[in-house]
Structure formats: C-alpha cells, structure tokens
C-alpha cells in the first residue's frame, strides 16, 4: 500500500531514474486536454506505460482531493493549487512548467461606469474569488496599480457568478476570460461596458504530482517519460488550431467554433522555460500575496518544485517554443 509523506519532507533527492519505466507501470493522469491531444496527434503510441485513467478533474480543490484519495498521480493546474496543497500539508511537487506571458483575464466593467485603467478601481466594487486564479489576478492588478485591498471593495463571489453580477450591476469590475469576455462585451458594449486590459498574467500552467508518486521510481520514470509528450501535445494543439478547436472546444466542451477560436486567440504561443527561476519567483509572489491577505500561511515556493524535472519539457519541444526562463 502506498503511504503518503508529509509535505515538508525532504525533496526527492535521488537522481531521476533514467530508463523507461518498468512494464506494468500505471499512472492516473488528470490532464484531460493531453488525453485528447495525444490521441489526435498519435503521440499516445509513444506512451511507455499504461494510463490507468484520465480523470477529468480541473478545479484545484478537487485535484488535491484526488491526490489524497490516491485517485490521481499527475495533474495539470495553474500556479495556485500547489500553494494551497502545501498550506494544508498535502505533499505534491511541480514537475513541468508552461509559462503564459499573455494576460488571460481582462477586467470587464459594468455598463455605466467610467473605468478606463486599473488605477480607476479605487473605491469600486470588484468581483473577487479568493481561492481561484481570478482572485490572484485581482490582487496582482491592484498591487501593480498601487492600490491596497482596502482602497477598493472586494465582493466575494464564485467566478461562475461574475457575469451575472456584472449584468445585475452588483459589481463594477470583474476579471473575465474568453469566451465570456467577448460575449459580455458584445452584448453590453452598447450600454457602455468596457474591457480594461492589464498586463497581469496568470503565468503558470503546471504539471504536478504527489510526493509519494515521485518517490516511486517506476512512477517517477513514467512521469519523466510523460512530460515531453505533454509538451509536444500542447505544441501540436497550437500548430493544429482548427483541428484542436473542433476536437476540444466544439466536440468535447460544447462551445461554438467561434467561441473556440476566440479562446485560442486569447492564448499566446505556448512557452516552456528551460530554467524555472522566474516561475519560482512568480510562485513566491503569489504565495506572498495570498499570505498577506491571510488566506494561507506563508509558503516557500522553492519547495513546491521538483527541480529534477527542470527544463525537461522545454528540451522536448522545438526551439521556438523554448524560453530561457
């Protein structure tokens, strides 16, 4: 039986096993997009181990529960869930990093407000969902605009209610992503709704795994062989945008092709850093922002990464998808 170890246990220091995972190795991978990308690109033929399941979990708390329940060995999330996991003593490490330098979220304003820049947020009601990426985006935007949280009125809402809250004019500003943003602006632009762009990014898209999975040499080897395929899958989706929109957004997610295109357009070309220094620094900033708000205890970001995997993803993709950091 697998046992879990405490989060603050020593990082796995053993060298990564080099060879292919032993036969019979199984991984449960909660990366729904990879499942489709590998299947559509034919990369799945290269998988040197058995995927026992592709659980469709994406929300941070759900993935953390999946880790605890030993139902998930590897998952794809934004930067915040690892901090939350660390804060409550669930040991998990980041094993691959994709950076997104293009802002994913735009601040949509309610009709009839006169907000043009982040500086105008002062005194306004801002939709705020603490535990989610959108929450961090708000905190960062305020910080960059030189505002403190006490200068605005944060309205706690789950991100799924942001649109409703704007429509009902219960908040003045809310961070929206595509396709909701375009939908909202098209419908309410004539009433004076606007999008306020900031350069606040939700930098990280990561793969992460529980510590005890990483300590299992067979599974660690399997993960090591999976990381390149994951990166190549992401690149494949980028390069075959139309097929991907059709396969994922339209067929799987049930959005229209237009919406799918809007979403892809809002994304930047994928980038995989060779060095994780910038990622760690960004993660530390995020952790500090959350700690300042009193949402989680202080966390050392360094401990969130398993640097044995550093650059593995970057090295497996063509040059133009690599960045130094």
């Amino acid at each position: 039986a697998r046992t879990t170890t405490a989060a603050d246990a020593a990082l796995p220091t053993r060298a990564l096993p080099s060879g292919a995972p032993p036969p019979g190795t199984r991984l449960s991978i909660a990366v729904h997009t990879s499942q489709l990308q590998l299947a559509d690109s034919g990369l799945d033929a290269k998988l040197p181990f058995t995927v026992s399941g592709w659980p469709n979990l994406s929300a941070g708390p759900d993935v953390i529960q999946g880790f605890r329940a030993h139902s998930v060995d590897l998952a794809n999330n934004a930067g915040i869930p690892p901090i939350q996991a660390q804060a409550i003593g669930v040991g998990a490490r980041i094993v691959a990093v994709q950076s997104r330098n293009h802002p994913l979220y735009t601040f949509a304003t309610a009709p009839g407000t006169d907000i043009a820049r982040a500086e105008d947020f002062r005194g306004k009601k801002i939709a705020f969902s603490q535990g989610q990426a959108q929450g961090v985006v708000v905190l960062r935007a305020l910080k960059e605009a030189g505002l403190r949280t006490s200068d605005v009125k944060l309205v706690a809402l789950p991100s799924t209610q942001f649109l409703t809250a704007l429509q009902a004019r219960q908040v003045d500003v809310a961070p929206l992503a595509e396709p909701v943003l375009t939908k909202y602006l098209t419908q309410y632009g004539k009433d004076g709704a606007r999008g306020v762009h900031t350069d606040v990014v939700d930098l990280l898209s990561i793969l992460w795994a529980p510590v005890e999975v990483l300590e299992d040499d067979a599974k660690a080897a399997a993960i090591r062989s999976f990381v390149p395929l994951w990166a190549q899958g992401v690149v494949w989706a980028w390069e075959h945008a139309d097929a991907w929109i059709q396969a994922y957004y339209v067929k799987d997610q049930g959005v229209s092709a237009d919406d799918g295109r809007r979403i892809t357009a809002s994304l930047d070309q994928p980038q995989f850093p060779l060095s994780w220094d910038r990622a760690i620094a960004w993660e530390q900033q995020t952790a500090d922002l959350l700690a300042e708000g009193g949402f989680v205890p202080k966390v050392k970001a360094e401990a969130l990464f398993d640097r044995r995997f550093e650059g593995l993803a970057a090295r497996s993709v063509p040059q133009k998808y690599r960045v130094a950091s």
Partner: protein
Amino acid sequence: MTEALSRPRGTRRRLGPGRAVPFGRLLGPLLLVAVWWAASALHYLDPRILTGPGSVAATAADLVRDGRLQDNVLISLQRAGLGLLFGVLAGVVLAVAAGLSRFGEYLVDGTLQVKRAIPSLAMLPLLILWLGIGEQMKVTVIALGVAVSVYVNTYASLTGIDSRYVELAESLDLSRWRFVRTVVVPGSLPGFFVGLRLGVTASWLGLIVVEQINSTSGIGYMMFQAQQYAQSDVIIVGLVAYGIFGFASDAAVRAVERRVLSWRRTLAG
C-alpha cells in the same frame, strides 16, 4: 323551529376540493412558459438576461441534433437510476429497522439526522477519499441523498401508523414478518411515496454535484460546463430538461401512488 327553507340542490357545498381534471396539474407550468414567452415576445425580457423560449428551443434542437442532449441525459439517467435504486432500498430498510425497534431507532435515527444536516459538498471530500472519483462514488453520493429523503418520510409515516392496527396485529398473533408485510409496509406507504418523490428529485439534483467530479458526460456536467462558458441558453435548456424530468417523474410516482393507495378515502378523493 325557524322557517324550513328547502334547497333543491343535490349535495351541499364541498369543503374539500372538487373533482379532479385530467392533466390539470400542467396548468401552472404551462402558464409559466406562456408568461415567459409573452414577456420575451413583448421585449419585456432582456434576452441577454433570460433567453426567450424560441431561442432556447432552437438551442435544444441543436443539442438534440448533434446528440449531446440525449447522450448526456441517458448517462445521467443511468447514474440517477442506480442511485435511486440503492437509496430507496437503504432508506426503506433503515426506516423499518428504526421504526420497529428502539435500539434500531437510537442507532439509526440520530445518525441520519446528523447526516441529513451535513452538506454533501462537505461530505464529498470524505467520500472521494473512501470511494475514489469513479462511478461508485457518484452513485453513492446520489444514493445517500435519496436514502435520507426516503428514510425521513417513510420513518415518520411508519411510526405514525395508528396503534389500533398494531394492537390488532398483536391480537392475531402475527409473526413479525407478516406484521411488516401486512401492517407496516402498507401503513407507511403514504409517507414512502412522499419520500420517493423527494428522492427522485434529489437524485436529479445530486447529478449537478457529482458530475462536476471526473465526468465527461451527463446533464449535470453539461450544466456545469455551460456555466463555465456562460452559455446561458444551454443552461436554460438544462433547466427546462430538469423541470420536465422533475415534473414527469413526479407525475409517474403519483400515478403509481394513486393505484397503490387506491384504498384511501381522503380529502383529495
């Protein structure tokens, strides 16, 4: 004696409701739809806020054409059906156990009251830990919700059986099993049916919760996805589907109830 004013009418003013009209129960929902239709036809309703029935119907047609609606509904039906089955069984067995012995009552009843009070959102993490994130967990969550609905109502109805009938059963030296069959079960059926009706709905509502976890299909998943992408027309299609299923399953249970409880002579006739 005052003047004996005679009335030529056959029967007096009823205090209970009158005769039932077939399908009368549809009046309310149809009226609702009519108001919705009228409000959006008269542009009284901002289509950005609540899509009109026309475009909802169009969206529904689309969803049906590409098979998404049926597929999702079928999968959900299966989950809800399994959960319903196990939940009803558990609820009834627990109700009988708690109703017929004090020990059973003390063991089961308080525990279920506590369970009932605990939000499924909070139970979910524990159930994931015990049962994983597969179908087993999903069916269990649904079954738990159903079981509680069935239990509470069946138990209340069961313990409310007129003691004169219990006395009769004792005077006839009925075996415990025959007592259960001839007195307890029929006597608690009225409550059981209320519980079942609540349970059927609970099984549908449970889908919304469980199909957020590791699902790629189901009507709950569809609703959740639509919410993520702010597809308000899909949400409303889902909502209408929920409404129709809720109404239809309720009507089905009632139809069974009417047959099974035909012995009753009640206010409703």
